[in-house]
């Protein structure tokens, strides 16, 4: 206990990092499940169904498969860089998540905010610094494999990521001008309040063009359909990670999904009020929304368990039912309800953006390479620049008028 009292920052940070890593890794695994399910239903299929009830154990099975596969290194590859690339990709992707505040800083344990690992004054800049390094993972993987398709994939993707990073950064500057700070918690607090008493004052309303630019550039930046040229399987086998097998491949996979989560979190923070509730404080029933939602989900699961599950799946789904009902009951306790408000809204918004990602994947065809570059440089960049100039002009207008 003495040690904990002497070094509260160190101890609390380590615990937060461990918990966050666990949550994010589980989240990544179930994001693959979520994606396969949603895309399957878009295409009138069932998706993963047989490993666990509703395929819920599929991510676990996939992880085990990756662990036990033979790990091959191409003999002609550059060994050091070949091994470095996936580690770099995953480490950078996970570092970025440490900056994300999942709830209000007022919730504290031992004087330390619980819901964010690192609350930096230059939060946004640091995040861009980390994500801008993400190109190396892809480029180096393509180069070090010493093979034609990975090299082409790596080249394409470096060009694409560098091009769209410009628009991505510029589209966010409008929000920064309004917020006047780089700290995530301050940006979120600045979005509290309501137009007409019930429309939340989120940055998405004045910055709708900036938001559209951001979300487009973000999809391109994370190499997802319709911008997934670096790994276009019909043209390049699997792009930059063609030569990677076993867990090194899984690391690229996880890095891609971690980047999706980071980008969705950033959209939530910058444009959609982060952990703020969309409803005014006076609507007190919203305190019971998380609990009620979980209990409704639990009731549906119970119905499904009884009616359509057979054999071992019945037991598995019964466990899921109990978890939902138990979680719902805990969320309804008056002491707990206000604390989980922040994380609840944050996660809900992030899940919406992740759904948006999967939705675009299920509906849009892939761009051609020249279309991609034309779109990025000739449409997206000018629009985000114009948005920045107009925002700056509108913000400076009142003070300019005052000074004559």
């Amino acid at each position: 206990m003495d040690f904990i009292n002497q070094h509260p920052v160190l101890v609390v940070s380590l615990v937060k990092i461990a918990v966050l890593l666990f949550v994010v890794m589980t989240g990544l695994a179930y994001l693959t499940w979520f994606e396969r399910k949603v895309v399957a239903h878009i295409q009138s299929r069932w998706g993963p169904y047989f490993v666990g009830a509703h395929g819920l154990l599929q991510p676990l099975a996939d992880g085990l498969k990756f662990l036990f596969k033979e790990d091959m290194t191409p003999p002609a590859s550059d060994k050091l860089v070949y091994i470095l690339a996936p580690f770099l990709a995953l480490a950078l992707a996970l570092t970025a998540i440490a900056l994300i505040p999942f709830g209000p800083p007022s919730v504290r344990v031992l004087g330390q905010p619980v819901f964010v690992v690192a609350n930096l004054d230059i939060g946004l800049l640091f995040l861009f610094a980390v994500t801008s390094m993400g190109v190396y993972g892809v480029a180096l993987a393509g180069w070090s494999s010493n093979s034609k398709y990975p090299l082409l994939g790596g080249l394409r993707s470096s060009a694409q990521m560098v091009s769209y990073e410009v628009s991505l950064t510029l589209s966010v500057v409008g929000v920064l001008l309004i917020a006047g700070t780089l700290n995530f918690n301050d940006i979120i607090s600045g979005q509290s309040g309501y137009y007409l008493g019930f429309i939340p004052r989120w940055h998405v309303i004045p910055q709708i063009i900036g938001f559209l630019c951001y979300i487009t550039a973000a999809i391109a930046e994370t190499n997802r359909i319709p911008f997934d040229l670096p790994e276009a399987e019909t043209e390049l086998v699997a792009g930059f990670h063609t030569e990677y097998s076993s867990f090194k491949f899984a690391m690229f996979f996880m890095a891609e999904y971690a980047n999706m989560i980071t980008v969705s979190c950033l959209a939530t923070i910058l444009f959609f009020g982060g952990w703020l509730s969309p409803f005014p404080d006076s609507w007190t029933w919203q305190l019971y929304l998380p609990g009620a939602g979980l209990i409704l989900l639990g009731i549906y699961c119970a119905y499904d368990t009884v009616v359509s599950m057979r054999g071992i799946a019945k037991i598995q789904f019964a466990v899921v039912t109990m978890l939902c009902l138990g979680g719902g009951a805990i969320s309804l306790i008056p002491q707990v309800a206000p604390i989980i408000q922040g994380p609840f809204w944050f996660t809900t918004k992030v899940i919406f953006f992740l759904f948006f990602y999967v939705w675009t994947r299920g509906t849009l065809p892939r761009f051609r390479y020249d279309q991609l570059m034309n779109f990025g440089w000739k449409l997206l960049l000018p629009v985000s620049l114009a948005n920045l100039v107009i925002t700056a002009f509108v913000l400076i207008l009142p003070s300019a008028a005052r000074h004559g």
Partner: protein
Amino acid sequence: MIPFIVFFVCALLAVAGAIMLIVAWEPIHSALSLVLVMMALAVLYLLLGAEFIAAVQIIVYAGAVMVLFVFVIMLLNAGTEERTNWSKFAKIAGLPLAFFLLLAIAHFLSRTAIGSNIANGPGAVSNAGVSTRALSMALFQQYLFPFEATSILILIALLGALILARKDE
């Protein structure tokens, strides 16, 4: 204590990266060593309390300039370097001269304000940290003209490179 350890680790990494940059045979290894130097320097800036400079150092140099280097090396598929025999002069006088240069730098640094701050430990100057606001005030008000002039200079260099690289039609 901890700032000292971080300082020496990063300083060693920076020097090691710089040496690797010269010694490495593969162009990509050289480029990566340079990235290592940039990262170590960024951490040193952080130790000095210059958060903004540290972030910009990574974004601009490690995240943009070096990515383009790596990109060009990949695009040209540059092979391993060819070595020439060292010049006789460099072989004999190189090391002593390098040592002398280091000594001179250390001597003059120790007499300046920066040097005395280093002697007090890397944490000593962190209070004088350059905030983002103070930096932008200096950049966009006090030094606005040189700043804009520099950006036009860079634009001219960009156009020049474009015209030189363009094929005749």
